[in-house]
């Protein structure tokens, strides 16, 4: 491993292009606990080990059966009758020599109930196929330790994925289609002056055809304002349909005046026309970012006052019992100490994320102050457009200079924001960190999940509307209630026997009864109309009964794939995690997210 850096870079090239070196460094320092290594657990493990996490620890008490050799790729025939945790760990480890693998031969539910301290040192806990009641306990344990949790189930051709943690902030949301922030409707003086300096009538044809469309729009908007009766102020933009149409028509006419009759508009004018809507698009703060900024001050103040940074969770910290292995052989494969790779470098990105609330607070003050004028700091990016090299670069410099000035202003405001108590001995965020934060601040986000126990209490009444409406979430709501009902039926020895050994009709009846139970429980005490099992589709009841305890490999793989995407989002702190309960429906081949996991 003499050239670990270089070979890592090549091995992980295709993903580093997505989350960068700093995202990869975070992944390489993540220690993941995997509860259950059936097909969902094994597939999740496979994806995360390939991506290069620091370590995994599998907790599973099963012995390998014939069925495991048919639905789990991290099992081979020679393992029949031996520890499943050991077998899966060995084959998962073999996927990537840089990852440390461990296993514990214990029942996950047993560890959850008896050794809560076991979970303390992980960066992420992933649970597969846990009963609802155990999941609720695990959730409490993980929140006590501040460890994020992902829960997943796979039942036949359906499954669920849900995240649970108090709070997750996202700086690099990396949205798919973000409209560039060009401030055409509200230009700052230097940008106005830059555009004004272009005199198209004094240019030759070649030059004129290369004037960037941003400049064309700025000039045309300026002229439009002057042409109003009386002339409109500098903040005025076309608002009505006729005004917008007239704006476009005069823009087209301006471009046509430079070409012979019957010839096409020059490329730059065509680009200006297709971007004309930016002339009346105000640089607003997107709602997710506005939500962050509105609470930034309060959260930053609280962090400064309490030792816990970020959104505090009002939890009694239970004494953590250290996990004592119940037998000498259980840790046979514990190869090394927890983290093998060093923490991510103190890069600008990492510093910006660590100081999320402080910098969000600074940005929020920036927006309110004269320096921001009600707008977010500019990110400074300019999309490619028809232009000469010189015209494009000088325009790019104008945007870049404004972004620098905004970031500098935010950095000086940040100095006035109280520092979190646990970090007040460290240096304030660097200029580079402030620049990084400002570059991404338009898409910052904060997500908070309610406790699993709260979801178990309130989830079903939340989906009642979706159950009754013929909308896209109807199947998902049916499956959600049915999986809860199935869990209830399996939690009782007698009904569980019917569910596993009864005739098809008996199984369906039991499931229908259980639906009634969970639905009635959901509306107990509520003044609304009672919910009954009549609401649940007979088709879905029959299918859930039909599927029984099966975990077809390809359904488990979809669930495992979604779980690993979410794990990567949590660990890299990039992209936006799932904020509800995802219900995968392999019959239709889609997934719907039910809004039952947010904090009240």
């Amino acid at each position, binding site marked *: 491993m003499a050239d670990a850096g270089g*070979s890592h870079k*090549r*091995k*992980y*090239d*295709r*993903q580093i*292009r997505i989350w960068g070196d700093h995202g990869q460094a975070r992944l390489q320092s993540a220690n993941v606990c995997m509860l259950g290594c059936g097909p969902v657990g094994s597939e999740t493990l*496979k994806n995360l080990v*390939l*991506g290069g996490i620091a370590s995994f620890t599998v907790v599973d008490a099963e012995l390998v059966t*014939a*069925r495991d050799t*048919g*639905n*789990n*790729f991290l099992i*081979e*025939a020679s393992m029949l009758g031996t520890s499943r945790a050991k077998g899966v760990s060995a084959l998962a480890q073999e996927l*990537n*020599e840089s990852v440390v693998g461990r296993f514990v031969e214990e029942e996950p539910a047993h560890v959850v109930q008896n050794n809560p301290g076991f979970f303390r040192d992980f960066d992420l806990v992933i649970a597969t196929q846990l009963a609802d009641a155990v999941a609720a306990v695990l959730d409490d344990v993980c929140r006590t330790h501040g460890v994020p949790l992902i829960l997943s189930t796979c039942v036949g*051709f359906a499954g669920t994925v849900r995240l649970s943690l108090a709070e997750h902030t996202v700086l690099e*949301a990396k*949205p*798919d289609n973000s409209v560039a922030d060009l401030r055409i409707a509200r230009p700052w003086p230097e940008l106005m002056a830059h555009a004004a300096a272009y005199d198209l009538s004094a240019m030759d044809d070649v030059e004129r055809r290369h004037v960037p469309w941003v400049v064309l729009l700025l000039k045309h908007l300026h002229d439009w304002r002057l042409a109003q009766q009386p002339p409109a102020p500098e903040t005025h933009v076309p608002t009505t349909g006729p005004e917008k149409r007239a704006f476009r028509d005069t823009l087209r006419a301006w471009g046509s005046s430079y070409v012979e009759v019957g010839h096409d508009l020059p490329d730059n004018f065509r680009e200006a026309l297709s971007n004309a809507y930016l002339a009346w698009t105000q640089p607003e703060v997107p709602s997710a970012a506005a939500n962050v900024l509105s609470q930034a001050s309060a959260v930053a103040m609280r962090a400064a006052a309490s030792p816990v940074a970020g959104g505090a969770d009002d939890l009694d910290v239970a004494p953590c019992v250290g996990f004592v292995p119940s037998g000498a052989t259980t840790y046979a494969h514990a190869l090394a100490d927890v983290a093998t790779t060093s923490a991510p470098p103190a890069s600008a990105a990492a510093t910006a994320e660590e100081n999320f609330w402080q910098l969000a607070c600074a940005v929020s003050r920036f927006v309110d102050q004269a320096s921001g004028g009600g707008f977010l700091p500019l990110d400074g990016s300019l999309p*490619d457009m028809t232009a000469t*090299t010189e015209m*494009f*670069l000088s325009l790019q410099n104008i945007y870049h200079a404004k972004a620098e000035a905004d970031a500098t202003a935010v950095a000086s405001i940040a100095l006035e924001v109280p520092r979190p108590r646990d970090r007040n001995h460290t240096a304030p965020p660097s200029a580079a960190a402030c620049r990084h934060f400002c570059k991404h601040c338009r898409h910052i986000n904060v997500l908070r999940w309610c406790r699993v126990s709260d979801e178990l209490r309130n989830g079903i009444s939340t989906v009642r509307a979706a159950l009754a409406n013929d909308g896209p979430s109807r199947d998902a709501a049916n499956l959600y209630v049915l999986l809860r009902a199935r869990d209830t039926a399996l939690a009782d020895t007698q009904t569980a026997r019917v569910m596993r050994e009864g005739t*098809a009709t008996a199984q369906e009846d039991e499931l229908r009864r259980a639906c009634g139970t969970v639905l009635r429980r959901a509306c107990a005490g509520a003044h609304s109309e009672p919910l009954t099992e009549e609401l649940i589709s*007979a088709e*879905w009841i*029959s*299918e859930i009964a*039909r599927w*029984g305890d*099966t975990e*077809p*490999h*390809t*359904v488990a*793989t*979809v669930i495992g*794939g*979604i779980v*690993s*995407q979410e794990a*990567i989002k949590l660990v890299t702190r990039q*992209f*936006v*995690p*799932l904020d509800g309960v*995802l219900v995968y429906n*392999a*019959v*239709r*081949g*889609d*997934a719907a*997210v039910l809004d039952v996991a947010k904090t009240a």
Partner: protein
Amino acid sequence: MSSGNNNNEVAMAQPPSRFEDVLHVLKRPGALAGDGFDADSGDDVMEMMQDSISLLVIGAGGLGCELLKDLALLGFQNMTVVDMDTIDVSNLNRQFLFRPADVGKPKAVVAAEKVNSRVQGCRVTPKHARVEELSLDFYRQFHVWVLGLDSVEARSYVNSVACSLLEYDEDGNVDPSSIKPMVDGGTEGFKGHARVIYPGMTPCFQCTLWLFPPQTKYPLCTLAETPRTAAHCIEYAHLIAWPRDRPDDEFDADNPEHMLWMFEQASSRAATFGIPGVTPQLTSGVVKNIIPAIASTNAIVASMCATEVLKIVTMCLRGMDNYTMYMGGYGVYTHVASYERDPQCIVCGAGIAIKTRADSTLASFRDALTSDSGGDGALPTDLRGKVTSPSISHGSSNLYMAHGPLEPLTRANLSKSLRELLFAEADMECERRTVTLMLNDKALAAPVRLRVTVE
């Protein structure tokens, strides 16, 4: 699919199957099962999946590795995997059947070996070949084709092969036995799609070509005269500087010396113009047109595809109808769209109906098509008189190739009658028959199907 001779006692007495998760569902009726599903034949269906169904997996890359594993763990045992590539270090973050020691070996060969050794009874046959190198008879032997490809070109090619196998009757109804169902997946970053295609019944690639975004192409004048971005400088080095400065070297993106040269050229051009941002990583990204890829997205999309293969073969559940988009970057968003066929599609459509006499020669048939009337008005108006030198084929046999080395070899067919060329001995007595011929010509974007009724 054999009919049910179900004997529950015998089934119960058997040891639990390795593929119990699938078998359990196959043996039980369901409200959401597909048309024709018969739970009483569950065991037979599983046996059929294992013994008589053969699947073609095209691509042994990120999706292909997952597909082979997925299909093997559903119980399919006969598969052939086609891939022309060899293993590169940058594949290892997701192509989980490959290890560092496999770098440089053919993907198809290693993938087949790994799956066969891990899943007992599985027989994956590797084909280290390009999709274009394989014959129609090769493609024809598989029941379902599963595509894990990364280019529009390769998908279009495979699509055109599947559609060329379609047989339509005189009225334009497709013969179901000529349909090769295809399941296709694709990914980029956290996004992907899975789709099911029954050529001739549901939209083919060509019908919905607009689903693929246009590729980024820079005008040469921008590269040569007004570069503005780092990518422009890199493409200048790639498309202009290399052929100018190293005309005798064939550029190889896998040659480190070539890539270094490219990076240095791009950097110096960027420095000349004051353009920031040229890095070795961006240089390889632009030159190789790299699509970022991760294991988890491939796993999701491939297993959605494999689940559809199971449904197509067993009908155990209704199929996806017919395209699922998956987006995992902002929460999780999926969307199922039932796209519709393009009735005018030149690739999967019923094609152009023509009537002709069995005793007319291929030459006279061909002359009629190239005449200004376009085969007596059979060709659509926009093609009449435009088709000047067409090649004509029937299934995998070239009746007449107008260009290239096959021309002299097929020239003799021109004087033969259509009866002689198209009818097997046994069919000679038939009064009327409809055959599908493919017509190709430089005036056509793709081969056109001719539904020729011979009397």
